[in-house]
């Protein structure tokens, strides 16, 4: 059988599939990805000149063979927090009821207080607020006062005020007076109050509940937390648990990396967030020159060729940029070891490796049991 054309066509089609999915689509998707801008925050920014040179040193010496630059993260669950009640009392309470969030079965005392807060802040947003002075005997206002009696402490009342998020200065003054609060806010209390409506939600549940609240003209936010699952993904939390990063690494973190040296081996620890984890340049010089000064059993080769070594004269003091051991003495007794420009650049690069908690696609999970790195000598 001569089926050359068919076979060749089959081969080409078969190859195009994976090429399209793994090469073409990611390349064109990433082309459109922009840094995240929020007011003053722009992330990521391109590296400084020195750090860029350092990336070249990192690449040229093959550091990427033993160090990865990517933090993994396991499953998160979402906690739904109400941050502003809006002005549509009926719709909000209906939405809360329909989504099994509140006003359904108020057994817990905690929940009752939260319900009171919600109802009160809805009240502050209603037209009845202006009536508090003119017509204090209105049944709605009587009810509001009863609710207010439940909130003994000033902090809860402050929460009510913040949840209402009134826009008009005049309304604010009336509301504060009604709540029995001083006209100016005391202390440094955060400008945002929140009531936890539900915890341990999956993304889909959280999304639909969030949408329902938004439709009721209220504002809510989702807070990601570490899920207590024991599936395959649970092991992925180890990176964040070790403090290697605040959150998982995402595509945006590598926008300006040329090349992006994500690494596929972890002979040593991950370096995605090393600039924050180890912000002391002297530590890096020490470690590069003599890794075993830091970790007794380190298998990292010493990068002595990145340093100059000079014998010290009798009684000569160490220079300011000399590499020292933990006790401030020269790392090579009798010698002065100073970093070459390559080492300066490499350390500048290492210090520039940071993945801060600013990108919206991967908010750092809260309530992390971050373990401080063990003290090394």
């Amino acid at each position: 059988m001569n089926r050359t054309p068919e076979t060749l066509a089959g081969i080409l089609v078969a190859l195009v599939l994976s090429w399209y999915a793994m090469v073409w689509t990611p390349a064109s998707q990433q082309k459109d990805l922009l840094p995240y801008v929020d007011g003053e925050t722009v992330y990521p920014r391109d590296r400084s000149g020195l750090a860029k040179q350092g990336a070249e040193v990192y690449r040229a010496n093959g550091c990427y063979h033993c160090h990865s630059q990517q933090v993994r993260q396991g499953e998160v669950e979402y906690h739904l927090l109400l941050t502003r009640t809006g002005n549509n009392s009926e719709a909000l309470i209906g939405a809360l009821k329909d989504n099994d969030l509140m006003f359904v079965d108020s057994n817990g005392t905690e929940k009752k207080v939260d319900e009171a807060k919600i109802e009160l802040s809805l009240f502050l947003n209603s037209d009845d607020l202006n009536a508090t002075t003119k017509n204090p005997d209105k049944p709605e206002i009587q009810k509001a006062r009863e609710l207010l009696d439940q909130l003994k402490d000033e902090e809860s009342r402050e929460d009510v005020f913040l949840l209402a998020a009134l826009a008009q200065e005049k309304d604010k003054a009336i509301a504060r007076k009604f709540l029995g609060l001083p006209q100016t806010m005391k202390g440094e209390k955060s400008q945002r109050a929140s009531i936890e409506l539900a915890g341990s939600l999956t993304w889909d549940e959280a999304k639909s509940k969030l949408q329902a609240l938004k439709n009721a003209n209220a504002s809510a936010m989702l807070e990601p937390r570490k899920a207590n699952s024991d599936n395959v993904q649970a092991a992925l939390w180890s990176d964040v648990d070790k403090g290697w990063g605040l959150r998982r690494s995402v595509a945006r973190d590598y926008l300006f990396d040329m090349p992006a040296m994500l690494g596929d081996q972890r002979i040593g620890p991950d370096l995605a967030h090393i600039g924050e984890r180890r912000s002391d340049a002297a530590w890096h010089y020490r470690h590069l020159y003599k890794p075993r000064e830091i970790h007794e059993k380190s298998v990292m080769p010493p990068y002595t060729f990145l340093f100059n070594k000079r014998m010290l004269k009798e009684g000569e003091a160490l220079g300011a940029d000399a590499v020292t051991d933990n006790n401030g003495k020269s790392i090579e007794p009798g010698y002065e070891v100073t970093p070459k420009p390559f080492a300066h650049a490499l350390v500048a690069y290492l210090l520039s490796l940071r993945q801060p908690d600013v990108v919206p696609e991967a908010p750092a999970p809260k309530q992390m049991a971050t373990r401080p790195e063990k003290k090394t000598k």
Partner: protein
Amino acid sequence: MIKENNSAPAPAVIDAACRVPVLLLFGSALLWLMTASALGVLASFNFHVPSFLADFPLFTYGHRASAAWTAMLFGFGGNAALGITLWMLARLCGMELKWPNVAALGAAMWNIGVTAAVVGLFMGDGTGQGGVDLPMYAVRILLLGGGLMAASAGLTCYTRSDSELYISTWHLVGGLVVLPWVLVTMYLLLGVDTARGVAQYSVVTWATSSLTQVWLGMVGLASIYYFVPKILGCPLYSRQLAQLGFYGILVLGGFLGVHVGAPVPAWIIRLSDFAAVLFVLPLLAVWWNIQRTVTIRPFAKSCDLTLAFVGVAWWSYLLVGVFTVLQPWLSVHTHFTLATVAIRHLLVFGFFGMATIGAIHFIVPRLVGADWDCQKCLRWSFRFAVVGLLLYVVPMVYGGVAQGGVMNGGGEYSNLPPTALNGMRVAFLGELLMLLASVMVLFNFARLILTHCCDCCNPIEILKMARAAREKGGVE
């Protein structure tokens, strides 16, 4: 055009026509195998003495590791794959190799390219892109060399006298299409107009996986499908199963290798996981096909050395395949660890390398016109290679799993844990044995060429052969 011609040239004539390029490729392949193994040993030695060669900026651990992998994949893998492709296509098409001189030139170019890549890596020109970090100027030369050989092979296939397309033919043609495709993509998206951010990661993963799983996979399977029926003297069990395996690997191969938790858009990870699970189909097809063929006439009854090599290759392929299929579940624990290195080596050396050495064992005497001088030496090198492979892969996987356990545990991780380090130290013995095996095969090859080749060649070919021998380190 395809001629319906029943008077195909005799095998001996076909062999004579492709002698120079194929011997050049095989010789270089064996030389690169030895180089790669030696570089690997030098790299691994760092885990005994971390400060080994630390004062030489040219020979950092990273440089040695990159050079060892590049020499293995492009030096050994490339030369051997192209050598097998040229010889086997000529045989299967019943056609003398077209433009053998062009192919020989291509082979020389390819080796210049690999040499440039390895030297460039030592000089710090690596691109930093994981599995395919060879410098881009070397990729250009590789493309040219590969293109010349592909032209020769393609033309041979196009003008063939035997219009039947055999199973091995598809695989070889598939390999010939994949290679330039990957090289061009690498050159354009990692060199000329570098993809942005993590797109580089997915390009690199695709390229690495396409080169190892698809390209080397195609040529290795072509050898298995060719030699098992040929030596056992019975037809392959099923053409349909082979077809399923063939297209399965072509379609799925490029998707493989993205690990769970990678910082790429989630759909890429899902897609890769999905492909890994589907990979069970081609794997089963390959397994069942060979399994049935061998049941008809068992492997064990034959004491043919080629078949022994091919048998080990088949087993390695199945092991790698099982590991591949389980990737979605395993990669959480094994990615970033020594286990991935071991499995990669099992694919490139255990599967492809063993299949290739089996093929060389079969092909070279036919090209030279004389049998191996020392079958015993080759039998020993087979044993060394198998024991070395076991001694390398088992401790590395064990150490890698232990490493993954510590990495995913709660405690501090600043270094390889002792279990992994000890596994690596045992694996070092395995590496030494594999190096020994490659030296023995190379030595036998050189001896065969030097003692037998001069009788049967015309003066021009003797000159060429002398050049080839010099490149292989001979003393002629």
